[in-house]
């Protein structure tokens, strides 16, 4: 049994939890090594006090679960059965306290589980799992690093294809083609390629806007590889850009660098945001930086910690998050420079290595 699962049993002992059910696919993967998207079917990892843990999966996933997971016992249900009634066979007949993920189970799942489990008390385990996952192990960091390497290689291979009049969407297609060719399972979120003033909206959609000289091009994308994600943004100049745009770029770059500088165990999470924000405000662009400076990532693209100006809590070794200050002026341009970092024992390791000095694309 791995350390992570042992930790769950310890937790059950300490909190008098009789049965613990984990259903969120990434959480299941974290403990069992088995990753699947069961869609509407029911899937879970179940720990019963004093017994071996088991995976409970749709029949069509059973073979895969047996071959990849570290869990010895696999039970399954087929489409013609009521999954909850099948699950009941493997649960103790009397349950005092049942632990589950309140923020993952839908109301429908929750009611169906309670109907068969008949527990007297529900214990929420969302925070426990969040807390366990927030500090990444060396193995996880290695996987994240591989995802980042592919992302950067795809960007490198895409840049020469960017020519005058190519559309945002065509660049997206090229990026995603490259990441798959390099072995990624797919993009970790909808790739963003935004040109000129379109990048002035932090959440614009790539479309048939063609790129022109004298403006910025913002590229924000990432990949999924072996269950782990990356999330990288770089902003490029298309040909020569004016001094006003260069000043915006320099300001964002300074904000990015200074925010990275303060990262180490024990620093307040809010301080990372406030550091970047101060740089941007001092240059008079405060009104154009209206979102948080970063977010945790790992198996999911948005994980804890959320790195914003009012975040409580301190940085811990193994936390992985993005640092992505930006200036978004909807009438002019948008610049964002995003890195992926991990908090190390005494500081920070910047996992993304793609150059950050303003690069002028020769189109």
């Amino acid at each position, binding site marked *: 049994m791995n350390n992570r699962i042992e930790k769950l049993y310890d937790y059950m002992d300490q909190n008098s939890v009789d049965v613990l059910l984990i259903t969120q696919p990434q959480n299941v993967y974290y403990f069992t090594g088995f990753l699947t998207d069961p869609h509407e079917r029911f899937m879970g990892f179940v720990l019963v006090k004093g017994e071996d843990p088991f995976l409970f999966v749709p029949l069509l996933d059973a073979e895969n679960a047996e071959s990849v997971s570290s869990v010895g016992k696999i039970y399954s249900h087929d489409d013609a059965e009521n999954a909850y009634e099948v699950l009941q066979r493997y649960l103790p007949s009397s349950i005092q306290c049942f632990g589950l993920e309140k923020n993952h189970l839908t109301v429908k799942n929750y009611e169906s589980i309670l109907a068969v489990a008949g527990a007297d008390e529900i214990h929420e385990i969302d925070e426990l799992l969040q807390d366990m996952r927030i500090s990444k192990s060396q193995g996880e960091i290695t996987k994240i690093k591989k995802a980042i390497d592919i992302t950067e290689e795809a960007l490198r291979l895409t840049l020469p294809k960017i020519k005058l009049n190519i559309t945002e969407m065509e660049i997206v*297609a090229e990026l995603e083609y490259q990441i*798959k060719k390099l072995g990624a399972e797919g993009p970790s979120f909808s790739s963003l390629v935004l040109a000129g003033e379109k990048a002035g909206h932090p959440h614009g959609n790539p479309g048939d806007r063609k790129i022109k000289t004298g403006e910025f091009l913002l590229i924000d994308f990432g990949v999924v590889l072996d269950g782990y994600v990356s999330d990288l943004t770089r902003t490029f100049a298309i040909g020569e850009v004016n001094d006003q745009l260069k000043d915006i770029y320099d300001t964002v770059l300074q904000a990015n660098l200074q925010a990275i500088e303060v990262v180490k165990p024990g620093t307040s999470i809010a301080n990372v945001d406030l550091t970047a924000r101060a740089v941007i405000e001092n240059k008079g662009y405060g009104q154009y930086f209206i979102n948080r400076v970063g977010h945790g990532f790992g198996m999911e693209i948005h994980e804890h910690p959320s790195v914003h100006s009012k975040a409580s809590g301190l940085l811990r070794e193994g936390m992985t998050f993005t640092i992505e200050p930006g200036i978004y002026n909807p009438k002019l341009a948008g610049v964002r420079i995003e890195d992926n970092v991990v908090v190390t024992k005494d500081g920070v390791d910047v996992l993304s290595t793609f150059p950050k000095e303003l690069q002028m694309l020769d189109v």
Partner: protein
Amino acid sequence: MDKINQLRSQFSNLGIDGLFITNPQNRFYFTGFTGTAGVAVITPTEAIFLTDYRYVEQAKVQTKDFDVVKYQDRNSLYIEVPEVINNLGITKLGFEQEDMTYGVFSRYNEAIDAELVPTSGVIETLRTIKTTEEIELLKASAKIADSAFKHILDFIRPGVTEIEISNELETRMRQLGASGSSFDIIIASGLRGAMPHGVATQKVIESGEMITLDFGAIYKGYISDITRTISVGTPSDEMRKIYDIVLEAQVRSVEAIKPGIHGKDLDSISRDYISEKGYSKYCGNSAGHGIGLSLWEEPFISPKSSLTLQPGMVVTMEPGIYIPGVGGVRIEDDVVITENGNEILTHSPKELIKL
């Protein structure tokens, strides 16, 4: 507005005087909003869309029949949304129990005055009957898939890998205006054809193999889903025979698609024909499924089907034969049920193509 009124007309049956919409596809269906954060509330007299600061401007442009209200951010969601709802005078507010997590439900339940009533599949049922505009979008999505198929025939040759074919298809669909691929593209060549869900691998295409290509586009939110099996060089006699059986099963099934036919009966047309030819053991799970905003939706065309087809429904028809150790064939079209029969949305040729 028609959609909203259709929903309102169901309120009394559901025992509610308002519906809280949180499922992203259902939200899009009613509002046209393409952002990632926001909830909609529909009452007998009002339609309100709430979203955060990032999306307010976008929502104002995209949501025609809704009043747009801003909440600050994720942290204030559970304070500001209930405040708005509490001002609407709702007593029984339906919510989507297959979408809302128990954690979210608990927070809303504390702050919303109205009784929260669990509902299931209300909007999903409305969504089975497509509007004229939706059918146009599904046609456009199917057209992209057809064009991409035509293109890929020039690309496939012995020596390329399944992944290269999949990448080329996806890139082509995007160039044609798709926002993406509607699912992980299946490229199953040779023996891998026996895997109904054989997502593309690094396997190299060889002469004499058949290849099943199952893919589709997302166009303005709407899905297409097409399958063709083609041959690189001359196939074996057995594969050729299987192909003809699947084609006949598929054509017969499509011809039978019309209002009033039950999903089970439609499923059995291809199943029975394939069994008659001696391949009952190698037939797939179900003959088809509804498509629209999602890839898998009602009506499902399977032995467990529970619906009768009606005009405006759009389904795929995709019988197949999968023989481990030999290979597989599947042919799939997207079909809309019309008043008198059906119209096929995918037009790629179905006679066996030999490259």
